[in-house]
Structure formats: structure tokens, C-alpha cells
């Protein structure tokens, strides 16, 4: 029953209800290049299948809003903030995640 429910839904995201409007007037970037402290919305996760899959399973899905908190002492990995929790990931992985930067 759950499965049929699941398949009936199309993948459109509204984690950030205003995301579509924001995207029109903002820059695109990768998570790697996102300046610290700026918020952004995840657009897509590219790269090898299993890595992209795991990144998304950890919550880095299109539509998620995200911000870079800081980098580790040697500049890598980075600490990112989602709405409910924090993640650490490497810059090579952050490079696979395209984001739309929110205006200030």
C-alpha cells in the first residue's frame, strides 16, 4: 500500500517553498565554492552513482537548504549545516553538489 502511494507521487520538491523565486535572481554554484555562512538550495547531486546515492541518503537531496559552517584545519573536509543537523564531507564530494545561492 505504501509502495503504491510512493510511486504515485512525482518528484517535485518544496522543502524551501520560495526556492523557485529565489533561483531566478541568484547565482548557481557548487557546494564546494559556496562562501561560508551563505545559505543555498541543493539543485542536483552529480558524480558516480553510489557516491551520489549515499550523499542523498544522508540528506543532501535536491531541495534541501544548506550552508557551509567552516572548513577543517587544513581546508578540507568542510562542515555543513542542514536544517536539522550537521554533516562533514570532503571538498571532492562537495564539488558534486550544485546549489543555488540565496541572496543575502
Amino acid at each position, binding site marked *: *500500500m*505504501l*509502495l503504491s*502511494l*510512493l*510511486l504515485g*507521487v*512525482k*518528484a*517535485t*520538491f*518544496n*522543502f524551501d517553498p520560495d526556492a523557485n523565486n529565489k533561483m531566478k535572481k541568484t547565482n548557481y554554484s557548487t557546494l564546494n565554492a559556496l562562501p561560508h555562512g551563505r545559505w543555498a538550495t541543493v539543485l542536483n547531486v552529480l558524480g558516480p*552513482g*553510489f*557516491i*551520489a*546515492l*549515499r*550523499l*542523498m*541518503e*544522508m*540528506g*543532501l*537531496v*535536491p*531541495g534541501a537548504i544548506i550552508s557551509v*559552517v*567552516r*572548513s*577543517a*584545519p*587544513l*581546508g*578540507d*573536509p568542510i*562542515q555543513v*549545516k542542514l*536544517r*536539522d*543537523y*550537521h*554533516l*562533514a*564531507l*570532503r571538498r*571532492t*564530494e562537495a564539488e558534486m553538489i550544485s546549489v543555488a545561492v540565496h541572496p543575502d
Partner: protein
Amino acid sequence: MPARQAQSLSTSITIAIAGNPNAGKTSLFNALTGLRQKIANYPGVTVEKKRGVWFLDDQSAVTVVDLPGLYSLNATSIDEQIARDTLVQSSDPDLIILAIDATNLLRNLYLATQVIELGRPTVVALTMFDLALRDGLEINVPLLSRELGVPVVPVVARRQIGIEALAGAVKKAAEDIHACVPRKRIDTPTTRKDQLLNRYQRIDSLLSGVLTRNKRESLSRTERIDALLTHRLFGPIILTAVVLFVFQIIFSWANLPMNLIDGGFSALSRFVRTTLPPGVFTDLLADGVIAGVGGVLVFLPQILLLFLFIAILEESGYMARAAFLMDRLMRSVGLDGKAFLPLVMSFACAVPAVMATRTIESTKDRITTIMIAPFMSCSARLPVYTLMIASCFANQKTFGFISTGALIILMMYLLGISTAVGVAWLLKHSILKAPSTLFVMELPVYRIPSVSNVFHTMLSRAGLFVKRASTVILAASIVLWALAAFPRTTEGSRSYKVANSYAGRAGRLLEPIIAPLGFDWRIGIGLISSFAARETIVSTLGVVYNVGEEDESQRSGSLVKAIMSAKRSDGSPMWTPLVGLSLMVFFVLACQCMSTLAVVRRETNSWRWPLFMVSYMLVLAYLGSLITFQGGRLLGFS
């Protein structure tokens, strides 16, 4: 599937607790089972399998299994594979309790919906519900339950809140056990991404009615703590301080109980000798069995303290920060930040360190970490270092004020670390070459560790260590005892007997090979015995040099004297500083530890890796000692 009696619940009904890492599974497990739990291994790998008994009410009890944490049924680490296989394939769990972190619903529900779709009877325990309330999260529990199609019970495991309601929900769900037919549902690779997106979409729309977010106090507090603990400059300083503090405590606090245990077993051994009639059996009991058991238990205080601190660091959330801070550095040798902790643990004992590597996702990284862990100077090497320093470098000073002994011990630690770095680099660029792997890790909210959780974790892990190590060490120490005790001669001193035993003959046979390292046949015997456990060389040398066994307290002192006065056949002193140094280098580099090899065998599930480990480390140890001794002689040292 046979129909079960639904009404009379018994321990033959098994409940598996599943959930994300850090979702409070273990707290819940402890709250349900109290001390009625035991820890074992999953077949083939050393992943902890914790089982316990949960009394639902006065009449009924069930078996509870705490599964390793997992983020998704698409497993990437061994931990996750085991949890996944138990949930999907095994017929074992009759019912699943999903531990869902109430403060992190969106991501936790990802796994939850996957598990619910498996079709097994499921009850959701909404953990850390107090934190969610304090964080201003409003959760409509009845609606969530209706949306998920399974009962949802808010719990605060640490304070035993909600446990009765959970028991009620479980009892009710158990009545349906026979009605459910588990389904196997495997996402095919082509559709996985779509399914994932669909799933998140569904969870998001589900949550819009269920969850109201307000200010997140615990997140912002965690951010404030992180501003210091993962700071570019202060982060590494604090990490160093934490590691040094833990080691200081482990070595200073453990001293007293270790001496007591050591003294206790020596006394027991003497007692056995004096009360039982002399003979093979008495010798076996006193020198084989009691000495063997004592040899394991003497490390228990250190192991307990180490596990205590690790449990505290894990529970508080700091462990993930350590991996975050160290990842870049570890990657320069081809490893992962998660390898940092096992390697640090290895300074106390490689056995728990090898066990701790299972959080590393990539098998090749994990094996590399296991292969280099024994290079960290563990606590079993300290008695050897101490004996060598006392015998060969007594009261020497460098530059007039630094103790040469302390300096040499520091050098031994550094030698181990730098060799580990080199070997890791070599392995990762040859047989264990792998494309760079994934490093994505949750940084959990900081929490004050709960005393009962910490002690549960510490005790169960220490128990597992004792069980595993004692059998191997006991067997090895009996074998080595036999080598040193047979063939039996009735006349002569103990050292004469040992010299004529199989071990003594092997030592003489070995002499031409180890002579270039500066070692004689006596050290040869010590080396053979030390392959059971490093520190046994000290007691073996005691026997070889016929140091009296009358007074244990003076034994080490008299061993030092005996070593200092030992001569080579040409009359020159046997134990020169260079020989002492050469022996210490050998002990840094060789894998003389049956327990480590046994654990590696279990962790890698093959004899290939432990055999590779013992042989390459032996080659390195031989070369290291050879270079030390011959190089030192060339430079004019003695």
C-alpha cells in the same frame, strides 16, 4: 512461515532495534534490557551483536537485538550490511522497533519508510522526545502514526519515559506476527535515484502536517561549542590535549590495579606451587595456565579505562569531530579521518583498535588501518622499554638534563608512527590501491554522556576483549610453557633447564640469524616467547638469567642487575646500549601478539591478512634492528 502463538509472548520472539547511527538505539536498548544483555559476534566478522531480554510486563518477556546503525538499506559499510541483512533477509526478527530521532525526522524517516515497506511488524520509537520538545519542535504523533501506518511511541530512553507505552504497542503488534509475510524489496540500480527522490518527496509532504519547527536550541548550542572544538587553530590544540589527557589517565590510574592483579596472580602461582605436589601438572597450572590468564587480565585496567574514555567521547559527539579534524592529514597517507581513532586506541592496545576499524566504509582503507595499527607502541611494549632503559641506559642524561631513557622511549613512539605512515602509503599505492572513497559523516549534536550508557558500553566491550584474548593467550602460553619445560630434566638450575628445553634449542638454532642484530641465544628464547605477547620476554629473561623467584618485588630489580652483569663468551658486556636499542627497535616493528593476530583473523575473515601482517612486520623488524646495530657499530657506538 510457521504461525506463532500470538498471545503468550516468550523470549523465543525476537525484536530487532534498528535506526540511524546516533538515533539513540543503544540508549533505548539499555533502557529496555537493563543489565540482562550479552554481547557476541556476528559470524565471520567482529561486529558487536548485542542481545538482551526485555520484560514487557510481569508475564511476558522477549529477546531484543540491538542492530548496528544504518542510514539506508543500501548498505556501504560492514556495520550497515549486517543490519540490512538482518532486516531484509534473515528470518530472525519477528518484530522491528525503529528508533527514530525526534530531532531529526526528515532524514531518519528515510530509513524508516524503507524498513516499514519490508512488511514486517514494526513499531516506531520516537527517541529523544524531550530534546525535540526543548528544541521547539512540535510533532503531531497520531498523524505521524497514521501516515506511516505503524504505531509511533514517543520515548525518553535515558529517563525510562514511554517504555511502558512502547511495551503495549509491541504486545499489540506481536499479535499480528503470524499475519505478516515479509517481502524482499531490492531497489534496482537504475531506479534507485528516482526511488530515493520519491521517498524524500513523500516524507517531506508527510512532515508538512506533522512537524512544526521553531528555534533549534540544541543545534545552536552545538554550533557554539563547535566554534571552539572544530576551530582551525584551537580544534587541533584541544584534540591533542584530549588525547594526551586520556593517555596520562590510562597510564597513571591503571598502575595500581595492574600491580595488584600482577601480584595476585604471582601469589596464586606460588600458592599452587607450595600446596600441590611438584610435577608436570603443577608446573602447567602455575606457569602455563595461571601465568597465561594473569597475562591477559593484567591489561584489563588499561583496557577498561580506554573503553571508558572512548565511550564518553562517542556518547558526547566529540569522536566525529576528531575524525573531521584529522581527515585531511590521514588522507595524505591514503586513509580516512575515521582511521584516526583506531590508531590512537592502538597506543593502548591493538586488539580494541582493530575492532574499532569497522566504522570505516571502504574495505581497503579498513585493512590498511588494521595492517598499520600494531606499529603504535602499545602498553605491552612499555615493560620491555622500561627494562631496556633501566639495564642499558641507567641514569644517563642527554645535554646534561634530559633523561636519555625518556628521550629514547619518545623516539620509539615516533619510529612506530613514521613506519606506520610509510607502510600505509606503500599499501595504498600497491596492493590496497583504491579510488578515493566517500567521506560523509554526521556531526551529531553534543550531549552529556549518560553514565549508564557509558558503563554498559565499556563493560560489554571489555568483556568481549577478555573472552577473545584470553582463549588465544591461554592456548599460546600453554604451548610456550611446554616448549620451555620439555624435555624435562631433573637436575640443574632453572636456567639450565630452560637452556636445554625445546625453546632453548630453538634459541641456539636462531642465534646465527639474530647475531647480526646483536642478540644471543638467550634473547632468542625471549623473542620466541614474546610472540605470544610482547611483555613475556621480561619473565622469560628472568628465567633464563635464573633470577630468584622467591621475592617478586625484587625480581625486576635483580633482573636489571643480572642483565647489566651478563657477559658475552669473549668477556665483553652482553647488554650494551646498542643491543638494548636494537631490541627496542625490534619490539617497535614486530607483530609479537597472538591476540592481535587472532582478532585480525576474525575481522578480515581470512588467514591471509594476519599471515601477511606477521611476516612483513617481522621482515621490517629484522631490517630495523640490523640497521640499528650494524649502523651504530659503523658509527663507533657500542
